C-alpha cells in the first residue's frame, strides 16, 4: 500500500496531496494540469517533495523532515509512461530483461514466460523497438515494468498516444495483470470510461489537491454535468448482475433491483457482477411506464436531488435497491413534467448508447460499496 502526504512547488504550480491506495487498481483522475503526473513522479522518486512523507508498505521512501529520500532505482516501483521509452539500442527481449537483472534474485517472483504469454509479445522478442507499432511498444513497456517484480506499478496515461482500437485491446490486459500477478497499480488517467472500467478506488485531483476519493460509483457521479462544457463528462457507474443472454438478438441482460439493462453482444455469463458506465446525457426520464417506445432498458427510482442551471437540469435518481443514476435533461422538460425531489421516475437508457466495451466484471476488493 502506498501512503503519501506531500507538497511540492514546481514553478507556479503547487501540489499538495495526501491519499493512500487500496488493493487492485487505484486511479488518479483529473484534468491535465491537475498534478497527476507530478504525483506519480514523486511516488517513483523522479522528483523530490518539498514537504511530507511517502510510504510503501513498511518502507519509508521519502521523509523530508528526517532527510530520507530513497533513490528511484532502490524503490522497486515500476513505471509505464505515456510513451513507451523502450531502449532503442536493445531488442525487445533485452528491454524486457533489463529491469529483471537488477531485481534481487529472491524477489523475482513473476515469471518471464507468463508475462510474455499474457501480453502476447513472444513473436516480438528478437525485434528492435523502432520496428514495433505503438500498441506493441506499450505492451512491451508494460512487460518490462512488470518483470522488475515491482512492489507497485505506476501507469502514467499509458494509452494517451494510442487510438481507440489499440486501447481496447490493451485494457483487458491490464485487468488480467491485476488479477494474475497481484501487483497493486496506481493508474493516472483523464479518460472517465477507462477509469470506470479499471479502478476499484479513485482519487480525484484538481489544481494540485485531492478533491475527493472513493469507489467509482461514489466518485465519478460527482464530476461535472452542470454546464454545457461539462455535461458530457457526467457518468454514473452501476454494478449489476448478468442475467443471461438473448441469443436470437445477440444481447446480454443485466439485472438490477430497479430494472433491467440490455447490453449489445453476448458479453458476460450469467451470475457475474458487471460494472456499467452510463452517460447522463443518454438517460431519458419518464413519469409513466413507457409504451410503444424503442427503448428496452429501464430503471426505476426516486429523484434525490436536482441542480438546475441555465437550460440544463442535472437530476440525481436514487434507484430502487441502491445505486445512483444521473440524468441530464433540459430545465424545460423538468418543469413540464412537474418533477421535483421525491418524485418517482423511470429512467430509460438506449442500449445502443452504452459502450459495452467499457463494461467490466467487478474486481473483488474492499471498496465495492454499491449494490
Amino acid at each position, binding site marked *: 500500500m502506498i501512503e503519501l502526504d506531500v507538497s511540492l512547488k514546481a514553478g507556479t504550480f503547487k501540489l499538495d496531496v495526501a491519499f493512500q491506495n487500496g488493493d487492485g487498481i487505484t486511479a488518479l483522475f483529473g484534468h491535465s494540469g491537475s498534478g497527476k503526473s507530478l504525483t506519480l513522479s514523486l511516488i517513483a522518486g*523522479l522528483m523530490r517533495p518539498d514537504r511530507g512523507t511517502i510510504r510503501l508498505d513498511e518502507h519509508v521512501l521519502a521523509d523530508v523532515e528526517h532527510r530520507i529520500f530513497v533513490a528511484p532505482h532502490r524503490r522497486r516501483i515500476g513505471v509505464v509512461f505515456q510513451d513507451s*521509452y523502450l531502449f532503442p539500442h536493445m531488442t525487445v527481449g533485452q528491454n524486457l530483461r533489463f*529491469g529483471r537483472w537488477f531485481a534481487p534474485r529472491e524477489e523475482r517472483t513473476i515469471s518471464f514466460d507468463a508475462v510474455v504469454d499474457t501480453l502476447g509479445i513472444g513473436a516480438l522478442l528478437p525485434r528492435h523497438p*523502432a520496428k514495433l507499432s505503438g500498441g506493441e511498444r506499450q505492451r512491451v513497456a508494460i512487460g518490462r515494468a512488470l518483470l522488475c517484480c515491482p512492489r507497485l506499478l505506476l501507469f502514467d496515461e499509458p494509452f494517451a498516444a494510442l487510438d481507440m482500437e489499440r486501447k481496447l485491446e490493451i485494457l483487458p490486459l491490464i485487468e488480467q495483470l491485476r488479477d494474475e500477478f497481484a501487483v497493486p497499480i496506481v493508474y493516472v488517467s483523464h479518460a472517465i470510461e477507462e477509469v470506470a472500467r479499471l479502478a476499484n478506488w479513485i482519487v480525484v485531483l484538481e489544481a494540485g489537491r485531492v478533491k475527493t476519493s472513493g469507489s467509482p460509483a461514489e466518485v465519478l457521479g460527482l464530476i461535472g454535468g452542470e454546464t454545457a462544457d461539462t455535461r458530457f463528462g457526467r457518468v454514473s457507474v452501476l454494478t449489476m448482475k448478468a442475467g443471461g443472454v438473448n441469443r436470437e438478438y445477440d444481447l446480454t441482460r443485466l439485472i438490477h433491483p430497479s430494472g433491467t439493462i440490455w447490453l449489445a453482444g453476448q458479453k458476460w455469463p450469467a451470475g457475474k457482477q458487471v460494472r456499467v458506465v452510463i452517460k447522463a446525457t443518454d438517460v431519458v426520464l419518464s413519469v409513466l411506464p413507457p409504451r410503444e417506445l424503442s427503448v428496452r432498458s429501464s430503471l426505476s427510482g426516486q429523484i434525490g436531488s436536482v441542480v438546475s442551471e441555465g437550460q440544463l437540469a442535472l437530476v440525481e435518481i436514487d434507484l430502487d435497491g441502491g445505486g445512483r443514476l444521473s440524468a441530464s435533461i433540459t430545465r424545460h422538460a423538468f418543469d413540464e413534467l412537474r418533477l421535483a425531489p421525491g418524485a418517482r421516475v423511470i429512467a430509460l437508457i438506449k442500449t445502443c448508447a452504452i459502450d459495452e466495451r467499457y463494461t467490466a466484471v467487478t474486481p473483488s476488493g474492499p471498496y465495492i460499496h454499491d449494490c
Partner: protein
Amino acid sequence: MSDLTPAEWTAILLSLRIATAATIASLPFGILVAYALARWHFPGKMLLNGAVHLPLVMPPVVTGFLLLSLLGRRGLLGDYLADIGIVLSFRWTGAAVACAVMGFPLMVRAMRLSFESIDRHLEKAARTLGANPVWVFFLVTLPLAIPGIAVGAILCFGKALGEFGATITFVSNIPGETQTIASAIYTYTQIPGGDASAMRLTAVSIAISLVALLASEIVQQWAEKRFASSG
C-alpha cells in the same frame, strides 16, 4: 603508391601513429568533458567550455608555444614530468599531445551534441527499472551516444592528421620522430626538387581524409537506421 620513398613512408606511418595515439588517449577525457558540459551544472562550466574551445580559435602556433612553455624541458610541468620519466618535447608523444589538444574541441563538440540529443526519459525509465546512475550511464547513455562519440573520434583523428602549427612549434620537425605528413610536405616545399614528394604526400593525405570522412558518414547512417525511432 609503390614509388613512395622510405622517408615518405616514415612520415605517413608516424602521422597515423600520432593521430591514433592522440585520439585514443583523449577519448575518455573527451567523453567525460562532453558529458559534464551536456548534463551537469557546476561553477566554472563556462570557463571549462571556453578552455576546451580555445585551441579552435587561437593561432595554432600560440597553442604550440604554450605547450612548450608548460610541458617543454624547461617548462612549468616539464621538469616534474621529466623526473617521473615522461619527456614530451621533441618526441612523437609530444606531437600526439599537441594533436590531442588541437583535436579535443572538435571531439567534445560532436560528443556533447550526441549526449544532449538523448531523450532523458530513457534514463529516467532505466532508473525506475532499478539501474543506479552508473549503470544507466553505461547501459543506456553511453551506447546511445556511440554514434556521436565515433564521429567525435573521427574528427579528432582527422584534425590530428592535419595538425601542423602547434606540433612544429612544440616538438619541431625531426624526421622519424616528429615529422608528420604535414610537416614533411612543408619541408619538401622548402627544398629544391621536393615538389614530387610533396605532391605524393598530398595525395596520401587526401586519401586518408576521405576514408575518415566516409567512416563518419557510415557511422551516422548506421545510427540513423538503428535508432530511427526511440518512442
